[in-house]
């Protein structure tokens, strides 16, 4: 998927001035936050479980090459073919090759963010293979001219019921329905016929289990099960970082993933799939492929950003982010929104292509507090800001301003003088009011903020006066 992260500011302004989006975002945010808060109370030791989960993920990342070899050996032993892809193009090439090899005309897809990274649907269409998204949210987006998802768990969180109703009426040519149950039923019927006639299923993978060579798939709708049960070919596309050692580790992570994502104790369907159809089996794919994807991940190993690879894609960070809650996911401009996206997008698409994202955070640490694998998101955002400065990527005006500030702050005399002038100037600017609401030096910064007006003296002056009184 092509990144639109460079237009972050314009995207944000558009999002803020879209009343429909603002209404939909307001509605969604309470639901995610409240449900999660309630469900984590079911665990006797939530924080200990988070610590254990972070350790599981670190254990693999610290020896990723060896764990990948282990997974590859286990999966191959059960009849799967393990392929590797360096980037988006190679993912698409592999999938198209597999489809051609097995004479596939139609493929049904369970939600996969890597498929979004790769822009896979367009590549399949170009090759004459019909891709059908089967997650309800992803399906809605696909029939709306391949719109991008705005959330990794709830892809159409930005849309209202009315918008979906209009879309179904237009695309399906059926009478307009306004009940969510009726719309869901309509999608079920349309998609059921695709499940039954597709030759190939494509899924992501929540986890790859090294011990058994299995993929674990977590869904609520059951589309993940359909895609991996009915077609004769199954292709799993996952990042190389998704390996976990054992089924016990899967059990630990499954206490956290659904609770953090949707506030459920467990998702409706957790499938642990190993190998191809066995002798006598009445269902399951005859051919199973894993595509293990780099696309920027390998270079994070051993770096100061390795912690980010622990991510299990639950979406809790965005659900709790005051910035995401206000601007929605599309503004971030690429596949992953919210705090995790603000870290991943510059790392995967280039620092220079997403300059605003690491700054699109208040560093309030809500994301860090809720992260089930304890990723220090604010710290990573701060490191990305530092990288931008180190590589001279910040705008010239900002660089000059900070240079000037550095010189000022290094000299006590100059600093005192500047502060003396500063408070008096700002007091005058306030003109007797308690807050300053506009300031021509930083007009954009003042758009969303008021600045408390100084009362006319610097801290040093007040401190000196206090000393005299004593």
């Amino acid at each position: 998927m092509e990144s639109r992260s460079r237009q972050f500011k314009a995207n944000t302004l558009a999002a803020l001035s879209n009343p429909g989006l603002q209404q939909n975002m307001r509605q969604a945010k309470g639901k995610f936050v409240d449900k999660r808060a309630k469900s984590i109370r079911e665990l006797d030791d939530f924080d200990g479980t988070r610590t254990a989960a972070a350790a599981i993920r670190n254990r693999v990342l610290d020896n990723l090459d060896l764990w990948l070899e282990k997974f590859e050996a286990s999966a191959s032993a059960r009849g799967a073919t393990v392929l590797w892809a360096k980037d988006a193009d190679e993912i698409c090439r592999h999938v198209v090759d597999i489809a051609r090899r097995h004479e596939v005309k139609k493929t049904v897809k369970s939600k996969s963010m890597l498929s979004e990274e790769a822009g896979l649907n367009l590549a399949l269409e170009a090759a004459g293979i019909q891709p059908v998204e089967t997650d309800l949210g992803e399906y809605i987006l696909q029939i709306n001219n391949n719109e991008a998802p705005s959330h990794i768990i709830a892809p159409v969180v930005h849309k209202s019921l009315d918008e979906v109703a209009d879309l179904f009426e237009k695309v399906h040519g059926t009478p307009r329905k306004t009940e969510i149950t009726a719309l869901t039923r309509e999608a079920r019927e349309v998609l059921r016929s695709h499940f039954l006639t597709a030759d190939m299923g494509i899924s992501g993978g929540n986890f790859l289990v090294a011990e058994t060579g299995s993929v674990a798939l977590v869904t609520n709708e059951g589309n993940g099960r359909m895609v991996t049960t009915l077609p004769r070919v199954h292709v799993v596309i996952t990042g190389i970082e998704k390996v976990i050692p054992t089924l016990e580790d899967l059990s630990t992570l499954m206490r956290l993933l659904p609770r953090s994502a949707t506030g459920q104790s467990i998702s409706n369907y957790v499938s642990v799939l190993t190998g191809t159809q066995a002798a006598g089996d009445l269902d399951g794919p005859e051919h199973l492929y894993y595509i293990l994807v780099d696309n920027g991940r390998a270079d994070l190993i051993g770096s100061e950003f390795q912690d980010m690879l622990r991510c299990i894609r639950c979406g809790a960070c965005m659900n709790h982010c005051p910035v995401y809650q206000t601007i929605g996911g599309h503004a971030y401009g690429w596949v992953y929104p919210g705090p995790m996206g603000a870290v991943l997008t510059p790392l995967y698409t280039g620092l220079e292509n997403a300059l605003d994202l690491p700054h699109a955070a208040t560093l309030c640490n809500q994301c860090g507090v809720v992260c089930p694998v304890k990723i220090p998101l604010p710290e990573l955002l701060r490191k990305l800001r530092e990288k931008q400065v180190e590589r001279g990527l910040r705008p010239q005006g900002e660089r000059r301003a900070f240079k000037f500030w550095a010189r000022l702050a290094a000299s006590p005399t100059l600093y005192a003088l500047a502060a003396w002038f500063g408070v008096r100037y700002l007091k005058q600017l306030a003109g007797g009011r308690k807050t300053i609401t506009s300031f021509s030096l930083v007009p954009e910064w003042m758009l969303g903020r008021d600045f408390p007006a100084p009362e006319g003296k610097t801290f040093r002056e007040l401190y000196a006066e206090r000393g005299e009184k004593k």
Partner: protein
Amino acid sequence: MTTRDDILGRVRARLNRTDANAATGRIAIDTLLVARPQGPRPQVDPEKSALVARLIEKSLAQSSTVDRVATLAEAPAAVAKYLRDNSLPLQAVIWPQMGQLDWLAAGVAVAARGAVDADLVGITGCFCAIAETGTLMLCGAPDAPASVSLLPETHIAIVPASRIVPGMEDGFALARAELGQLPRAINFISGPSRTGDIEQTIVLGAHGPYRVHLILLEGQ
């Protein structure tokens, strides 16, 4: 150079991999795969009646329904009653391993095979059930096809009380002990299929069953 070598090569370089530390690393992996450490688990009383009570409570919370009978022989009548009570057809696709029960006497016409689109009711057993979350663990096999719990609008599962375990770890341990290698498909099922994609409003029956009904065999 293949993509595999390129990706693994860069990971190795970044981890300062040497032959010596690779050998120690592989030993550590093999040790871990034998030890299989577990994370913190919520307390679940492992006593049989407590497991039954918790499975029922959690299953209801997942929007499943539960009926209790004493033995497997009583299951067909309980299925027939459930189907009648819910105005559902007395006709079902069933796991071949459950086909030997006396369905005829109960008045339910069963077809022992994999499910097709037209099947409205699917009857399965279960490998075991997990009390912690109210979850069925189904292991695919020629006589236990995965499609039966997936395609029909109604899924009825027969669950012997002796097969209720506290947590997911115990289900996996049972699978290792009884099946050796994992079957192609293990499906953990917790209530009817659902979606919350439109306005985060939960709707049952997204792609899989609208109804999941457990028939608990208390004496078995």
